[in-house]
């Protein structure tokens, strides 16, 4: 079990909706809980890039925040390095945050606009009281900047965040996490706001750093196509549950859950001959509110394959199907057959 760095066990996070005083009287104290995360379990192996895929509202960002301990879970457990980190005291939490770092989606908002790059990178050192002298700190900042290939470092240190491009900022954000020598990074859509032309460059940089330093990543994204290149394994989330989990290639080449299929079908491909075709998506409508999760399989309201059992019977659990490939669909075989038929045509 030592090769597992992070283990999440049946994690749940329910939010209480904001209610006015009048509403709480009228509602008689009955509140509809928002079930953002509704019992998820996964393991991240040492040195692995683990992708968490889902639409907005699927709970992927909440999962990231729970792992980062920016939110307290309603129930369930998180183990880091074999140690239970679900509830931590002040000192332990600080120690944990030194080992687990986060890169945020919006590189424009994740840095205080009044901090220079040097100040941004110095902050973790100050917080964790690493290295006393300014010279030593500066040395570490220079090293971190070189690691993310922002050269010459001296030049970047004196700049303001607004003077950098999105890609450069995301490099700084990465450098900020690396400076404390973490063991794991949580990256929440790190490239979604960056120009396509440089997106790959950032991903390469992140992967180089990962290989070099032996890091593990929890990579949260809605973009399957970058996930395929970047991650080793993928978990697909829908409405607070993991519906499919497996190796990146398996998930994309052989999706077993209809939701994963829909996600894959929806991705545009830069090939010609599609202008006059209206894409047939194997999915209906839009994602329901997490305050109103459908009974039975939570995907059945949108699923073209749904049978009566999907509506009435309890939600299917993740089941193993193939090597390291789990799915939560009781009609997976029918789904697969249907899809193969369609592909053949």
């Amino acid at each position, binding site marked *: 079990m030592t090769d597992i760095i992070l283990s999440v066990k049946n994690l749940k996070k329910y939010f209480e909706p904001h209610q006015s005083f009048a509403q709480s009287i009228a509602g008689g104290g009955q509140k509809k809980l928002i079930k953002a995360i509704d019992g998820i379990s996964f393991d991240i192996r040492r040195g692995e890039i683990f992708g968490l895929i889902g*639409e907005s509202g699927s709970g992927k960002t909440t999962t990231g925040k729970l792992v980062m301990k920016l939110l307290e879970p309603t129930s369930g457990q998180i183990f880091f390095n074999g140690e239970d980190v679900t509830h931590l005291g002040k000192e332990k939490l600080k120690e944990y945050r030194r080992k687990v770092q986060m890169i945020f989606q919006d590189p424009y908002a994740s840095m205080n606009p009044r901090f220079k790059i040097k100040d941004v990178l110095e902050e973790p050192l100050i917080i964790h009281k690493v290295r006393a002298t300014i010279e030593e700190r500066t040395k570490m900042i220079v090293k971190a900047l070189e690691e993310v290939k922002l050269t010459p470092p001296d030049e970047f240190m004196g700049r303001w965040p607004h003077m950098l491009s999105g890609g450069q900022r995301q490099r700084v954000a990465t450098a900020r996490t690396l400076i404390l020598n973490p063991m794991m990074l949580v990256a929440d859509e790190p490239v979604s706001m960056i120009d396509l032309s440089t*997106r790959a460059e950032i991903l390469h940089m992140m992967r180089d750093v990962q290989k070099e330093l032996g890091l593990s990543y929890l990579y949260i994204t809605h*973009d399957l196509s970058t996930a395929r290149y970047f991650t080793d394994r993928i978990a697909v989330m829908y409405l607070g549950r993991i519906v499919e989990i497996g190796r990146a290639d398996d998930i994309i080449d052989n999706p077993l859950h209809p939701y994963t299929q*829909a996600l894959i079908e*929806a*991705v545009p491909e830069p090939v010609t001959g599609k202008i006059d075709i209206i894409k047939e*998506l194997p999915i209906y409508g*839009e994602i329901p509110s997490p305050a109103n999760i459908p009974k039975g399989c939570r995907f059945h309201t949108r699923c073209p394959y749904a049978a009566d059992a999907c509506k009435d019977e309890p939600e299917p659990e993740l089941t193993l199907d193939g090597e390291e490939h789990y799915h939560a669909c009781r009609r997976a075989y029918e789904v697969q057959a249907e899809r193969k038929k369609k592909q053949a045509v």
Partner: protein
Amino acid sequence: MHMNSLLKVENLQMHYFTSKGAVRAIDDISFELRRGETIGLVGESGCGKTSLGTSILRMPTPPGRYVSGKILVDGVDVIPLPEKEVRRNIRWQKISMVFQGAMNCLTPVYTIGRQMMETLNEHSDLPRSDAEDLIREYLGYVGLPPEIVQRYPHELSGGMKQRAVIATALFLKPEIVILDEPTTALDVIVQAQIINLLKKLKKQFSLSFIFITHDLALEAEISDRLCVMYAGKIVEMGSNAQIYGAQGPKHPYTERLLGATPRLFKKVEQLQFIPGTPPDLIAPPKGCRFSPRCDKAFDRCFQEEPPLIEIEPGHRSSCWLHQRG
């Protein structure tokens, strides 16, 4: 003039006059939009594609001003027209626009219906009851139930808001709709749904689209022809088949951009990217503007600006490589 030509942009130059100098956001751009056609404007952020969109709508963002060139709508140059005339006959009547992030700019304190009504009132004198009917009708066209008018923006999903914004752009039966990154903030599934909707609406109302995005993969789904922009200029222009077909694009920039577009089903070891950043448009580099980032650049590229020349029927590209043989 071509009979089917709906909009013709001729040698348009639009610069932003800032305290640091003139930013040449649109620098000598010409293209033609035919009836029933979708033209894709694609390029990195800051290449001038949004500026081109607002310029065509004759509302360049200050401090932007037209420097030269013409924008011919039905053969009439709209640049010298008085603002009143543009508002009465062109903007929203002939050309409308779905602005980037418009769905997130809806006022949170007003209902969707009220905000749609405001746009309608601004551009037409329709009586109130007729306007309400019109709103309901168009909500139907974009696949939204009529009750939506009483909802507030925060009660709707991103996809629903974007549908409402698209409905608003269609009210006055424009012939041209400029769509600026209409799906950027949306999830893939919703994005695919919106693209489907746009295709349907285009046929239903015989519209012509100018589809602006940074995503080449998305353009492949919808655009008949593509204009690839780089640093305020069009570097390549061709049909969907010419750009995405077996032969592939001709300009190194388009080539690299396509290479950087991740493909779900084509497994490659390394994703490509374009190193460096786009140039400063106050003082663009001498010669070809892409030359500092181009791995195929040779002496001439750094000296002279390449012209946009036709390399095969309907396919233009501005690169010295084409003339090198």
